[in-house]
């Protein structure tokens, strides 16, 4: 007679998110920090003088931190191995979102810390403070990293890394077209919206500046943080649904 599994026996349970996080850390720790932060420090020296470039570099760092292990798994086709282990697809998705949030936090800290470290080298004649010094800049960073993961991760979980990246690029272009197409709406003269083509982050920063002007700091903080969390939550649900259907 084959016995039914005892749910209290750890052998009969799938791996927890904590176990999966431990696995990700073991893979990442081998070379990841050296590679990513080495690249970041070097690139920061080149970009710190250009606000948008320095901002985008650190958004990219968030992406690099979050996707370091998935890229390795994709490149080495380790996903079959991963899913032959006692893990649930749902736990894998949650783990990747937890890592994405952590990566966003680490990249944000790296952004402000590197900016502060390199402050003495900045042009003393700058008329406006760097993005990482301002609340609207920091909130823009949160929204941009949130958008990056909320858009990319479901496509990655549905289509895999290669096709997912292509889908992400196509979706980003559509979002940018919408952003640029509506940049003049509801914006008074003299703001970022009057620029013919602000940087993509400039579009979001412009809206956050409007929120700050209209709702104050507390209202804007609440709106941005809750909005980003909601967006990531919806994205997580979509990823779980799509990843549940994937075959390896």
């Amino acid at each position, binding site marked *: 007679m084959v016995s039914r599994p005892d749910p209290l026996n750890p052998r*009969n349970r799938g791996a927890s998110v904590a176990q999966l996080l431990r696995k990700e850390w073991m893979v990442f720790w081998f070379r990841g920090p050296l590679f990513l932060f080495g690249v970041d420090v070097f690139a920061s020296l080149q970009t710190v003088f250009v606000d948008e470039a320095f901002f985008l570099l650190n958004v990219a760092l968030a992406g690099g931190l979050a996707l370091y292990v998935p890229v390795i798994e994709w490149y080495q086709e380790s996903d079959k191995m991963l*899913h032959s282990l006692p893990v649930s697809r749902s736990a894998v998705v949650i783990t990747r979102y937890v890592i994405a949030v952590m990566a966003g936090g680490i990249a944000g800290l790296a952004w402000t810390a590197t900016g502060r470290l390199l402050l003495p080298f900045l042009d003393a004649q700058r008329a406006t403070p760097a993005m990482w010094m301002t609340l609207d800049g920091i909130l823009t960073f949160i929204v941009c990293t949130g958008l990056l993961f909320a858009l990319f991760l479901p496509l990655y979980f549905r289509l895999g890394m290669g096709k997912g990246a292509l889908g992400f690029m196509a979706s980003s272009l559509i979002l940018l077209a919408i952003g640029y197409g509506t940049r003049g709406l509801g914006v008074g003269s003299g703001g970022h919206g009057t620029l013919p083509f602000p940087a993509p982050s400039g579009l979001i920063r412009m809206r956050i500046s409007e929120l700050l002007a209209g709702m104050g700091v507390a209202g804007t903080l609440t709106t941005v943080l809750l909005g980003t969390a909601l967006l990531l939550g919806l994205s997580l649900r979509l990823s779980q649904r799509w990843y549940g259907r994937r075959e390896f």
Partner: protein
Amino acid sequence: MEPILEVRGVRKAYQGFLLKDVSFSLPRGYIMGLIGPNGAGKTTLLKMILDLVRPDAGEIRVFGMDANREGEAVRARVAFVHEEPSFYGALPAERVADIFRVFYPTWDVETFRGLAKEFGVPLGKKLKTLSQGMRTRFALCAALAHEAELFLLDEPSSGLDPAFRRDLLDRLSGVIEGGQTSVLFSTHITSDLDRVADYITFLRDGCLQFTLTREEVSERYALVKGDPGILTEEVRALFAGVVVGEFGFVALTDDVRATREALEGESVVVDRATLEDVVFYTGRKGKGGMRFRGESA
């Protein structure tokens, strides 16, 4: 006793491929060989047992559990060795073993290290620098280190040297000795199955040809050799496949008694068929199962 693995009416369609209503079961304490030509559906079937691929219809139960709905609990008690083991290749083998250990509460470090030493796997080296055979040895060490109850092996012996293959077969025979563990072993090297398999499941073009004990295969199938002149349509209908050469034909029959009776008095030789013969000759049903030398399968 409930079988350790039960496949019921499983069906899976891909573009240009259909696995059709496959059903078989594997009792505890036995080794089953899964044979068939490339593209027969062997790997797809193994993936469905692991819930890496979902069947369009049918059901797979492992340890009495649904392989899809209770996949994690199933996989905790299954060891899988893939044809081309691909792990985190940039990591040293020992680090990858540490990753496995995270997921298996029953992982035995000493067993793993002992096996690695016995199998000659250099644990300090990066996996990607090891040969395919050595990576397979590593995967086998991992499979044997966590007290799995069902071993799913997908062409594990193809990259292994003959001496280690024999060791592997002895090891698998040892694994099932307690009567609680089973092995499902997909391979093209059918001589391996002649040595260890208790059951044989034969897939061809997505269709289950049979699930029989090894003895039943030996009893049911035979090679018939004779002069092509006797190959009438009626005689051809007796065969699962025929190869006609310049000087004679070789055919596979799946009904030895009927064939002997039908060909009584004819100058034919009836020989034992190996599993390789069964895979090679079974197939083309068109033109009475005719297959000519030089014609690809």
